[in-house]
């Protein structure tokens, strides 16, 4: 029995595949808009001309050099990074929720973000360069997940519960260590730096930050997208997956490996941006349902669009940068509440 639709709700109802396509195109449209917005006023027309100038410099002949550089060297890499990082958080959050059969976990369930935070903090304390901070964050992110994963292997079986518990333990360990570093840090310089890193920011993105991030993120996203539908089966648990001819252990290891690389790569550049990996999957499910065949692309699009939007606010609203970790909650919570009100469905 199809529930009768009240007259007021008989608007144009988009099919779920159509919504997925819209969600996938949304970040690109937003990116174009974001290119034209910033503290520095550049008209839409000029922005377009500037964006075309790499093809033929003639397009932007009359535009000041500073505007060109701003769009091409400052805004463009930052917007691309926001897209990649947002998409990574969205997709890895969805992936982790599927393999943990739990809609309340996010990308940090195995401690990757906390580990990366510690890595960054230690590099900041040792006065590392941006590169060194990034690499340290990335490596410690991987280390944290390895600890969780192989720690749980100490038990004969690897039930999800043990893995989750290990993730929580390793997360606590690294957050304690980070707290220790913050305690040791000079309140005049390294402490604010660590604090700001832990709140997340894309301020320091340059083109040089992008290749590694893009390589890891895009590979991971394609992998997840192709795997898409199979997340459904994984989310039913090991026994059912096995009985349906899938080796859940191998598949989960691959997913965890990919998701960890993606999250670590993203976090090492952006700093800690919580919440996206938790909430985007929910928003996605409300829009396209729980089927991962659609949910994975939907959360890729949603995550990218969401972080782009957040970062746009962070960089353009006030003269000072607003930490992303602050905005994700401030913007995301009302957004999600609105969604929850609209469709009162389960997960």
């Amino acid at each position: 029995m199809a529930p009768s639709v009240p007259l007021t709700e008989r608007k144009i109802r988009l099919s779920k595949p159509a919504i997925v396509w819209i969600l996938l195109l949304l970040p690109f449209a937003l990116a174009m808009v974001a290119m034209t917005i910033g503290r520095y006023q550049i008209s839409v027309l000029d922005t377009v001309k500037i964006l075309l100038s790499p093809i033929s410099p003639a397009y932007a002949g009359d535009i000041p050099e500073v505007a060109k550089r701003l769009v091409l060297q400052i805004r463009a890499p930052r917007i691309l990074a926001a897209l990649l990082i947002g998409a990574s958080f969205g997709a890895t959050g969805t992936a982790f929720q599927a393999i943990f059969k739990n809609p309340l976990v996010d990308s940090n369930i195995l401690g990757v973000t906390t580990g990366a935070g510690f890595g960054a903090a230690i590099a900041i304390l040792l006065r590392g360069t941006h590169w060194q901070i990034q690499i340290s964050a990335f490596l410690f992110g991987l280390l944290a997940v390895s600890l969780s994963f192989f720690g749980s292997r100490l038990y004969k079986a690897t039930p999800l519960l043990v893995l989750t518990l290990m993730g929580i333990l390793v997360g606590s360990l690294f957050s304690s260590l980070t707290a220790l570093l913050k305690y040791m840090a000079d309140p005049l310089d390294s402490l604010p730096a660590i604090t700001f890193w832990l709140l997340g920011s894309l301020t320091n993105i340059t083109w040089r930050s992008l290749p590694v991030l893009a390589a890891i993120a895009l590979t991971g996203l394609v992998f997840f997208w192709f795997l898409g539908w199979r997340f459904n089966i994984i989310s039913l648990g090991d026994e059912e997956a096995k009985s349906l001819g899938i080796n859940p252990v191998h598949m989960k290891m691959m997913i965890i490996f990919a998701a960890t690389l993606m999250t670590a790569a993203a976090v090492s550049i952006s700093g800690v941006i919580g919440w996206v990996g938790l909430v985007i999957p929910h928003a996605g499910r409300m829009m396209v349902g729980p089927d991962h065949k659609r949910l994975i692309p939907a959360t890729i699009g949603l995550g990218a669009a969401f972080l782009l939007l957040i970062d746009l606010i962070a960089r353009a609203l006030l003269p000072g940068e607003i930490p992303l970790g602050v905005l994700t909650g401030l913007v995301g919570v009302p957004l999600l509440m609105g969604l929850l009100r609209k469709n009162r469905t389960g997960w």
Partner: protein
Amino acid sequence: MKNNPLRIATVIILISLFLIGCTSTPQGDQTQLIETDNDAISVVEEVLEEDVSNSDIDIEIPRFTIKADVNLQGELSALYSAYFDGELPVFIMDDPDLLVTAAPEIAAERPVVYPTFLPDTILIPQIDNEDIDNFIQFAISPDGQQVLIEIGALPEILVITDQAGRQLEIHQPIRQVLSAYGPATAVIYSVNGWDRLVAASYLGARDPQGAEAMERIDPRFPELVGDDLFSQQEFDLEEAAALEPNLIIGASRSSWIESVEQLGVPVFLVEAETAQQLRETALLIGELFGPHSYAQAQAWVNYFDWVIDTIQKQWSENPMEPKPQVLFSGTEPLRVASGDMYQTEIIESAGGISVSAELSGYWNDVNLEQVVIWDPELIIIPPYGGAKVETITESQEWQIIDSVAFGQVFRMPKLVAPWDTPAPDSVLGIVWLAELLHPEIVELTCASETNFFYNTFYNYAISGDEIGAICTLN
């Protein structure tokens, strides 16, 4: 130089202290040293008396003669007999060895600080004499203060309101001070209170250069430094109790105030975030340490005002001179000083405009696009937190800023306390920046003022090499 008498007196005292007390370590108790001194003198006296009795001529040979107003002679007699073991001073009207007089009006220029044993009352030696110098040093020391308190010339209890608005009653003189706040420590040094410190946290002494310079200024620095024990966040109560301070100075934002008050030692809270507060801090700490320190604090305030006025006047006398746009960047290139911060006052006092003055709070993170909009003509980075000029000048992205492309990025200098922080030294930050912003019109130079400041206020004979290293741009 106009501060010669004091310098000479100080040098002589230091030498004599060294000669007499060379067996004991320099950080030994000051009072003890003076007593040793007294013993030595009394031995000499006995020999003298013997000579006199032998020769049967009853002539007193005064150590030195003093010219003083009649109403000051009681105080001077008390000091004299306390220091010279019951002897009485000889007052004369003309050609004295030591002149006691009211402090002169402080000239609107680089001030001279005279030994001030009572408010607005100074001691000026007229001849070069060891006794006189020792006496002067005694008169402005806590022991001298003690004598003056006993005869009622100075109050025994100082009622004072600290910068957190708390009224305190503090027994005078204070002899053992613990400073848990770097800027306050810098003020203590520049009001001649450094020899009463038992432990302190320092500004800008964490890096090796800063620590070395600080040790040159005060050899006791390695023993005194307690940056990890005493700060705004931390306060090691056990360690503090063992040091037996009779005054603790801390920041008004310190988190430990209530627990430290349990020690039963007065806790004086300081808030020096702005130039005005820094002036108040200097005067209050001066008052705590006695008339001489107060006079020196007043001298610093006058000097500070004089520097700012001079720059302002010289700038305004040249109507064509612009006010350059300055960006004060922090430990990270994109972390900039807000309008609420002291750095903004420094920029304005030096005749510039802080582009990030519209921001509020503490350090603000901004993006490069915002810096493009600000388009600063000059970027200043601080001398701490690993900030490097190259981080900005060698960044590809920063080339979008013209001033970076033209190399207009400079690091604020420092000797110990960074010149951009609310410490007395910051007066030099203003001079340095003014010289940088208006080289044609501002006559004050980094080199001359650095030399004057450290000699006068830190009592430190800064070397030419040091001055050169500090004042040479980048």
